[in-house]
């Protein structure tokens, strides 16, 4: 457990250093993910412990969004004014993005 956690933090740290040091547009944790992926390919798979910890953390992924979501309380005045149109815009644009992305990938694969 502790080794796996250390591994994840270590790759995030390298990712942050590279992202900031080289001024990359890709955020540190994503750089860390890509680095770890590269190492896994080179190594031929994750150690059992890392795999178990990663799946454990990911099974509770939604929890990690709660603290940021509670920030809604700071914006109640904005939401009272613009909440309805804002919600409509979020729903409509998410639907458009989903459909355009899904169909692009789908059609390009069928086209082959």
């Amino acid at each position: 457990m502790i080794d796996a956690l250390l591994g994840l933090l270590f790759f995030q740290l390298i990712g942050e250093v590279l992202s900031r040091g080289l001024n990359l547009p890709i955020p540190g944790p994503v750089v860390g993910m890509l680095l770890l992926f590269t190492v896994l390919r080179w190594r031929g798979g994750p150690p059992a412990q890392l795999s178990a910890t990663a799946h454990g953390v990911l099974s509770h992924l939604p929890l990690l969004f709660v603290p940021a979501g509670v920030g809604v309380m700071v914006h109640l005045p904005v939401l009272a004014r613009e909440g309805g149109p804002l919600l409509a815009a979020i729903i409509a644009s998410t639907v458009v993005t989903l459909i355009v992305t899904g169909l692009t990938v789908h059609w390009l694969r069928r086209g082959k």
Partner: protein
Amino acid sequence: MDERIFSIWVYLAQTPLLWLTATIAIYRVMVEISRRLGSPPLLNPVLLAIITIVTILMATDTPYATYFDGAQFVHFLLGPATVALAIPLYESERALRRIFWPALAGLLIGSATGIAAAVLIGRLAGLSNVTLRSLAPKSITTPIAMGIAEQLGGLPSLTAVIVIVTGMVGALFGWELLGLMGVRDDSERGFALGLASHGLGTARSLQFSSEAGALAGLAMGLNGAMTSLLAPFLARWLGL
């Protein structure tokens, strides 16, 4: 007695312990409630937990900053969790190879669509420019979206809320919507869901298959990068 309880409250309200524990406990209870009711999409545990915590904070006059002192330990785990997505990604490498080039095109088109659709529809709905700037990076994961909003001159903390709602919308019916449009392949669905609604879309995709979840996680990461590249140009081009 009352005074004693009050002094305990004063102490607890100022340590990270109380709100950290409350965040995890309330989320845990909501997962259980939602599961017992057959996991109806509208009773999303994240949504229920947020509503409950906001209600408690407002009833006890606790400022968000005090809450976040404790909850930040949960928030921090978003970073290691993103790194952890390398594991399902590795396990689904074959699926990734199969859709590599179409996915790359989908990334470029989907990312631009996400930003442009948000700004244009938002403008049509009559939103102010500050709100539009906070809305533009809505498809991508919270920490990156907040950074972009700041760069564009929006309100990062409003962006955080918009991002969560976007994630919930995608998780609510994205998978089913893609199926209705004829997109039935797990990896294609996962990719679109991760691109359009980041970590919550990824969490939802993981419920269907580890392959869908892995591609969702990949799409989430790539779109975070692509949106940081595109947003400044698109925002200027759209007159923000």
